[in-house]
C-alpha cells in the first residue's frame, strides 16, 4: 500500500534486532477518594526493534494505562513505579521537558477515536507540520513537503490539496490515516496504537491495519497494538501479551499462542470469539463472572474467581511466571 518512498533512511539499515524498550515490574496506581487503586500490578516485557506486539485484555485490564505510563500521559492522580527503559535510558519519572523531546520523535501514539484526536479548529496541515517544526527544526515549506509525502504514504488521494482541509472534512478512516501519518512523521522507533480501529467500521479497519503493518515494515518501527479484538491481533501481530487484572497472564509468538493457548483465560477469550468456520449451536461462549474491580488486589491469581480449573491454592498463592524463552504463562494448573 505504501508505494511512496517515505523513509529518509533505507529500511535495511534500521533492522537491528535487539531490545529497544524494556519494561520492568511496572505498577500504575491511581489516588482516588477511596484510597489508592492499582491498575497495573507489576508488568514486565521487552520490545524488540521492528516487531509488532499486541497487548490484549478486556476493559479495565490496565492495557491502556501501560501505554499512557510509558508515554508519560497518565492522569494527574496516577503514578507509575518500576522501570521503563528506552534504549537503556530510564524514562519513567522523567521530567516533562525531557520527555517532550522523545514524545513524537522517538515514540508516538495513535488514539482510539480519530474523530476527536484532531483539533477541529486547525487545518490538517498545521497539525502535521507542527511536529516536524518542533522535533526536526524544519522550515515551514520543507515540513509541508514532508507532510504531503506522508499523507501520500498513508494513501490519502490528492494529498497536496487535502492537506489544506479541516478535520471535519475527512471521514473517520481518513482521519485515522492522518493520525497515523502524524504519528510516523518523525520516524519514531516505537508506535503505540491504543485501539486504533475500534471506532472504525470493519472494512476500513482492515485497510488501516494493513497500512500500519506495511508502514512499520517499511520504516522498521516497533508497533505496540493495544486492543480487545483478537482477530486484529492474529492478523497483525508477531507477539501477543495477554493481560488480566493488571497482570500478564500469558505471552508468546502470536501464531503459537493462538494455536495452542495455555492459560485458562486465553482459552476462554479465544472460545468467546465468534468464528465463521465453526458451529456454535446458536450461542456464543462467554467467560462467567465479572472482571475484577481494580480496588481489590487479589492475593493469588486475579482470574481465579472466574476460572473453571481453579484449585484452592489459586486463591492464596500467586502463580510463578513460567518462561521457556519464547512463551510465558502465569498459572498453577497448566505448564508450558
Amino acid at each position: 500500500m505504501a508505494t511512496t518512498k517515505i523513509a529518509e533512511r533505507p529500511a535495511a539499515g534500521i533492522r537491528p534486532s535487539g531490545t529497544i524498550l524494556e519494561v520492568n515490574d511496572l505498577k500504575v496506581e491511581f489516588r482516588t477518594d477511596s484510597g489508592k487503586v492499582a491498575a497495573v500490578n507489576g508488568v514486565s516485557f521487552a520490545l524488540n526493534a521492528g516487531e509488532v506486539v499486541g497487548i490484549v485484555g478486556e476493559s479495565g485490564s490496565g492495557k491502556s494505562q501501560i501505554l499512557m505510563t510509558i508515554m508519560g500521559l497518565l492522569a494527574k492522580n496516577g503514578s507509575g513505579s518500576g522501570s521503563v527503559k528506552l534504549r537503556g535510558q530510564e524514562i519513567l519519572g522523567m521530567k516533562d521537558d525531557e520527555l517532550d523531546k522523545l514524545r513524537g520523535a522517538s515514540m508516538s501514539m495513535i488514539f482510539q477515536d480519530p474523530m476527536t484526536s484532531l483539533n477541529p479548529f486547525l487545518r490538517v496541515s498545521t497539525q502535521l507540520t507542527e511536529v516536524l517544526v518542533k522535533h526536526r527544526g524544519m522550515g515551514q515549506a520543507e515540513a509541508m513537503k514532508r507532510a504531503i509525502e506522508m499523507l501520500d504514504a498513508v494513501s490519502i488521494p490528492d494529498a497536496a490539496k487535502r492537506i489544506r482541509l479541516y478535520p471535519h472534512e475527512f471521514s473517520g478512516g481518513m482521519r485515522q490515516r492522518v493520525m497515523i501519518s502524524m504519528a510516523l512523521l518523525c520516524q519514531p522507533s516505537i508506535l503505540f496504537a491504543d485501539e486504533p480501529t475500534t471506532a472504525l467500521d470493519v472494512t476500513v479497519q482492515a485497510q488501516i491495519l494493513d497500512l500500519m503493518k506495511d508502514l512499520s515494515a517499511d520504516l522498521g518501527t516497533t508497533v505496540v497494538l493495544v486492543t480487545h479484538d483478537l482477530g486484529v491481533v492474529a492478523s497483525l501481530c508477531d507477539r501477543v501479551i495477554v493481560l488480566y487484572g493488571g497482570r500478564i497472564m500469558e505471552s508468546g509468538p502470536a501464531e503459537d499462542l493462538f494455536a495452542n493457548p495455555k492459560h485458562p483465560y486465553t482459552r476462554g477469550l479465544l472460545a468467546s470469539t465468534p468464528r465463521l468456520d465453526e458451529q456454535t449451536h446458536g450461542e456464543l461462549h462467554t467467560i462467567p463472572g465479572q472482571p475484577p474491580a481494580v480496588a481489590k488486589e487479589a492475593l493469588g491469581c486475579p482470574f481465579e474467581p472466574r476460572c473453571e480449573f481453579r484449585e484452592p491454592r489459586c486463591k492464596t498463592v500467586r502463580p510463578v511466571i513460567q518462561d521457556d524463552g519464547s512463551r510465558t504463562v502465569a498459572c498453577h494448573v497448566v505448564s508450558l
Partner: protein
Amino acid sequence: MSDAAFELIHESDHGATVAGRSKLKDGFGRMRRNKMAMVGLVVLALIVLACAFGPFVLPFDPNQSDFDSISIPPAFAGGHIFGTDDLGRDLFARVLEGGRTSLLIGVLATIVAIVIGISYGAVAGFFGGAVDTVMMRIVDVLYSLPFLFFVIMLTMVLGRGIESILIAIGALLWLTIAVIVRGQTLSLKHKEFIEAARAGGMKPFTIVRQHIIPNTIGPVIVYASLLVPEVILGESFLSYLGLGVQEPQSSWGTLIDGGAQAMDTAPWQLIVPGLFLAATLFSLNFIADGLRDAFDPKDR
C-alpha cells in the same frame, strides 16, 4: 469587529470549495442567513463609516462655536441638519466626533478584555491545580469590587479622561471572559487531540496557544459582541455622571448629559445623540444575537 466580520462573511462565499471550510467560517455563514443580524450589521457599518469619515466631510468643526447660531433646531436650510447646541456648535459634527470616542472605547476595551481574558482563562484552566485556584481567587476578588467605586477610585488616581475609563472598564470586563474560557479549557484539556498533542511532544504553552485558544474562540466571539454595547453604555453612563470623557472632547455620554440639561428648551440636543446611541446598541445586540445563534452548538 464588524469590519472583520464582514470580511469573513465575504470570504466564505468564494473560498468554501477550494481551501477547506473552518468552523468559524461555518458560523459566519449561518449568521449571514439571519436577517435581523444582517440589518444590524448594515446599520452599524453606516454609523461606523459616518463616524470615521463624517468629520472630514462636514463643513463644521465640532469644537468651533458659532455665536450667531446658538441652539438652532434641526433644519436642512442652514446646513445644521441636526441643529446646534447652546454654544452654537453643530450637533451632527459633535455626535459623529462623540461616536468616534464611544466606539473606540467600546472596541479597544473589548479587545483588551478579550486578550487578557483568553490568556488568563486558558492558562488557569489548562494548568489547573494550585495555579488555577490562585488565579481564579484573584478573579473572585476583582469581581467583588463594585464597578462604580472602582472607577471613582481610578479617576482620583489617574485623573478623569479616556485613559482611566479604558483602564477601569478593561480591568474589570476581562473577568467574565476569563471564567468562560477557563470553563471551556477544562472540558477541552481532556479531549484526545490535546492528548495527541502531548504525545507529539508539544510544550504546555504551545498546546495552550495552538490547540486550546482557537477552540474557545466561538463562545468568546459571542460574548465579546455583547461586551461592546456594554462598554459603550458603561462609558456613556460614566461620562453622563461627569467621570468620563471631559470637554471639549465629546462622547455620546457627555452629549446626552448636555442634552439632558437643555431638555426643556432644545430637546433635539438629547434626542439626536440618544438616537445614535440607541441605534448602535440595537445593532450590536442584534449582531450579538445572530452570532449566538450561529455559534451556539445546541442550536445546530
